[in-house]
């Protein structure tokens, strides 16, 4: 799934050998990895929900 990096910082180094992700840009990650990034304080949201307000879109599916 694609996720968007909304900070903190101007870029995100995922430490996987890829280029740092600029602020506001998207990157590919597993759901588990995205959850880890969020848990460590990063503002990382899946693309359909990339509004920065942290609202989940899961409820729309049910």
């Amino acid at each position: 799934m694609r996720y968007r990096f909304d900070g903190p910082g101007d870029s995100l180094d995922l430490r996987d050998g890829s280029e740092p992700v600029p602020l506001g840009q998207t990157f590919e990650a597993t759901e588990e990895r995205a959850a880890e990034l969020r848990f460590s304080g990063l503002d990382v949201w899946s693309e359909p929900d990339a509004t920065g307000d942290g609202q989940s879109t899961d409820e729309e599916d049910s």
Partner: protein
Amino acid sequence: MSAPLEVLAGPFTIWVAPSGTAFTDPSATPSVSWTKVGTTGDQNYSDNGVTVALSPTYKTFTPAGSTAPTKVWRVTEVLEIEFGLVDMTAAMFAKVMNDASVTTQAATASFGGNSNVPLLQGVDVTLFALMARKTGSAAGDAFNTQFQVPLVYNAGQPKIVSKLGEPDVLDVKFTALKDPSLGYGKYLVQSSAHS
């Protein structure tokens, strides 16, 4: 606060934005283009407060037939806004380090996450627009007082003296350059709310 209203106290809070950004009216909350210096504004400044220093220098002419000067010229004008920033977040450190980029490194199974800022600033000096604002004006407590300066650079020389029982302080000295059309900017005393 009671009268006399024209007697003001308390520190300014500093806001910066890329040079050329439009100033926000003193009656309004600064727009998203503006970054508050200090995560919580004046709560992150050392107790020396915020100094706005206008420092002109003069040259006088004393004629041969006089012991006292008879004419004066202003030869330089310097505007500096100086304070101690007690905020060691990567974002604020980067802001005073030439508005450097912050790289956030994600945590992995082997390494913790971090945010990092380069220490080498290079030749180019970042220019900001600056607003220094405080609550209260000579016209009323509900109004704001604001300095707005179109072009400044940070000439502060941070020397972090880490001591037991003392906060780490970053010396910030925003020094003005003359804007071709706005000069050094303005001092605004809000006198009424929105009409």
